[in-house]
């Protein structure tokens, strides 16, 4: 279809048309503008502070995408995503620092990209291990088994053993210039930003495509009713474990990406609160929606930062306001989850969909 706007109503005649990425010229133009904004406008106008905020948003999106896949699309509740991010971060760090790479691979900047890929696969396999109980249990019980991932991985294995590799007993430090993608040394917030944008786009596209495939439909069927899915011939255990693998893979890549923003890595970077906040992100943004993941991450990071900037001018009059802000921020986060669950259970994505529909149907919205 090559019209600028879709006519009012649904005129798709084939599934291919309905699932097309670029349905109209308007959508194509809109996406080009978005890409220009992400790759040109933001790096041009944003200072280091806002770029670092964007990086936090990207980190949150990448972290929450796996949670969205598990909870939103496959119906498998998880509170252990932080552990798989940690696995990715540690695997990548250890490979970059400790693996005996041939010199040419270090010179050509191949070590880090290879470590990212291995980190994704390692975290995926580790995630499958903790997804095994999903064959037998679900709901609240599955939450508990995924929580075990945090305690076993971060509090036990990473803390007691991995952190002690090389007799360090402290944070692994990543010297400047260690993180290289080919000739591109990632040593500034802006470079991390570009890497983050590329990863976010790639994973959003991959998950969107997965959801349009046989695998995605199987996941949705399992989410909606696993017994019916099994009756339809879907291998429920296989697809559940596949969901855990993909979510873990994304988490692993997220962790491996995040080390490019850190000069040192320690288990303190991956508290249990991280897993909890990622679930909060999709609750606020909207479950079963990639848009929701993005909106939730923006809400979690940007809105909270704006709130902080809003109270800063008041700090002259109330000096303790800034010191109390983290408390206010966490209270606001908790309150936001409660309010969204009560008044907008479909999250920000639903609001976005309504706004979009309003304009799509304008001026005959009735």
């Amino acid at each position: 279809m090559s019209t600028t706007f879709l006519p009012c109503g649904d005129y798709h005649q084939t599934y291919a048309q309905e699932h097309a990425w670029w349905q109209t010229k308007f959508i194509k133009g809109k996406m080009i503008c978005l890409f220009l904004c992400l790759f040109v406008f933001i790096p041009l106008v944003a200072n280091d502070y806002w770029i670092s905020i964007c990086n936090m948003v990207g980190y949150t999106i990448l972290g929450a995408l796996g949670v969205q896949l598990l909870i939103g699309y496959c119906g498998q509740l998880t509170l252990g995503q932080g552990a798989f991010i940690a696995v990715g971060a540690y695997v990548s760090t250890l490979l970059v620092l400790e693996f005996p790479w041939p010199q040419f691979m270090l010179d050509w900047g191949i070590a880090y990209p290879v470590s990212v890929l291995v980190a994704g696969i390692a975290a995926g396999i580790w995630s499958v291990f903790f997804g095994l109980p999903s064959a037998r249990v679900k709901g609240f019980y599955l939450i508990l088994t995924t929580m075990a991932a945090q305690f076993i991985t971060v509090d036990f294995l990473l803390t007691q053993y991995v952190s002690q590799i090389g007799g360090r007993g402290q944070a692994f430090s990543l010297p400047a210039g260690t993180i290289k993608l080919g000739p591109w040394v990632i040593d500034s917030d802006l470079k991390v930003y570009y890497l983050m944008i590329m990863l976010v786009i790639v994973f959003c596209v991959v998950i969107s495509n997965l959801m349009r495939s046989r695998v995605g439909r199987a996941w949705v069927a399992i989410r909606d009713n696993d017994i019916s899915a099994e009756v339809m011939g879907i291998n429920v255990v296989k697809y559940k474990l596949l969901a855990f693998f993909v979510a873990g893979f994304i988490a692993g890549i997220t962790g491996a990406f995040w080390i490019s923003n850190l000069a040192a890595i320690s288990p303190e970077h991956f508290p249990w609160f991280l897993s909890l906040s990622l679930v909060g992100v999709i609750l606020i943004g909207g479950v079963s929606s990639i848009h929701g993941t993005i909106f939730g991450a923006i809400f979690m990071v940007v809105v909270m930062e704006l709130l902080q900037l809003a109270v800063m001018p008041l700090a002259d009059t109330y000096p303790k306001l800034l010191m109390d802000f983290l408390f206010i921020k966490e209270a606001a986060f908790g309150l936001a989850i409660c309010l969204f669950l009560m008044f907008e259970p479909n999250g920000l994505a639903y609001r976005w969909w309504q706004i979009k529909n309003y304009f799509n149907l304008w001026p005959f919205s009735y």
Partner: protein
Amino acid sequence: MKSRILVFLMSLALIAGIFSIYACGEKPEKKEKAKLAAEEIQIGSLNDMTGATSDVGKDYALGIAEAVHYINESGGINGKLIKLHQFDYGYRIPEALTKYNLFKQLKCVAILGWGTGDTEALAPTVARDKIPYVSASYSGHLCDTAKTPYNLFFATDYSTQARGLITAWFDTKWPKNPDYGKRKPRIAACYMFASAFSSASIKAYKNQAELLGFDIGPDQDVSLFAIDTKSQILALKEFKPDVVLHTNTVMSVAATMRDAYALKLGADHIIKNWGFDENLPKLAAAAAEGAIGCAPWAFFGQDAPLMDKVIEYAEKYNPGIPLEKRTIHTVQGWASVLGLAEALKRADKAGGLSGESILKNGFETMVNYELGLGIAPVTFKEKDHRGQSQAKIYEWKDSKFTLLAEVDLKKRWPDKWENEWLGW
């Protein structure tokens, strides 16, 4: 209707935020304000009021704010006032990273930092941006200027503390042990493995214990949040240590000492500075008797230069907090601010407040600088940011802190101090 209210409230927050970006930005039309702002020196401060180390972080944060008031009210930095931007980051490293960038946006010339994890994570960025970073992390890893040129602190570093504590115990307590001369003394450590702060001096502790001929027992993982440590104490009982080193903060240390007392471990306790304060005897009660700790500063209210000001400003700016509840961490906060202020004054006189000038014309011109507050003289060298080689060791005995020993590592092991021990 309700969802509309929600949307309205969110929009309001967004608009307020956007407005504040404008409010925080430059306003060229108001020359008067701009001039005033030019006379202000922006300083950022990261503190932990709600996180894993908040048991000691609250008092430190109060000390920072009160000391800045004192500096401003006694003439500022050569007439310029300090504008303090103080944030609680909840001991979360990602939060610290974004706050650091916010400080950069606010044009802070120096930063007062907190934890070891975030200070070490930020160290290369700080070096790249050339922003002096005076932390409350006294990790030995931050002293080697080849790696962390812009990190400084006004205290005895953790590694020197650990070495000093072991040495003081070895010199004063071990000879009184009935087994002295018959066998090697036994030592073990309790700390949170996952915490970069708690584990920062473990390598130095083991090295020093080997140097003095100790048998080293298995490390025990004790969380900073620990309230029950019986399993760790039972594990230690197998080893029968003569002395246990603690490197956590005070609540965790008190919990461990209580359990050690209840289970009759029978060992002495040596404690790094963050676990050894006025709250330890309150929390550990009888178990605290005989506890030995490192305190590079005077305890709150002790007789020391400038302590009268510390008390005066505590009463003036935080009258709601009784003085008997204040601790040595307030004094630590003061030490960080006074040290930074002195560096700023020197740099300002020498021609500028750029990061490089503050480092070279400020901090690195301090040779045996007497700060007051009971802290040993401070010296920062171009290649060595260990401010002090002395560890002041106190003992809690008969309901008071008594100076037990002053161990000067540089005097005792000059070669190792100069050539081996820097940076870990």
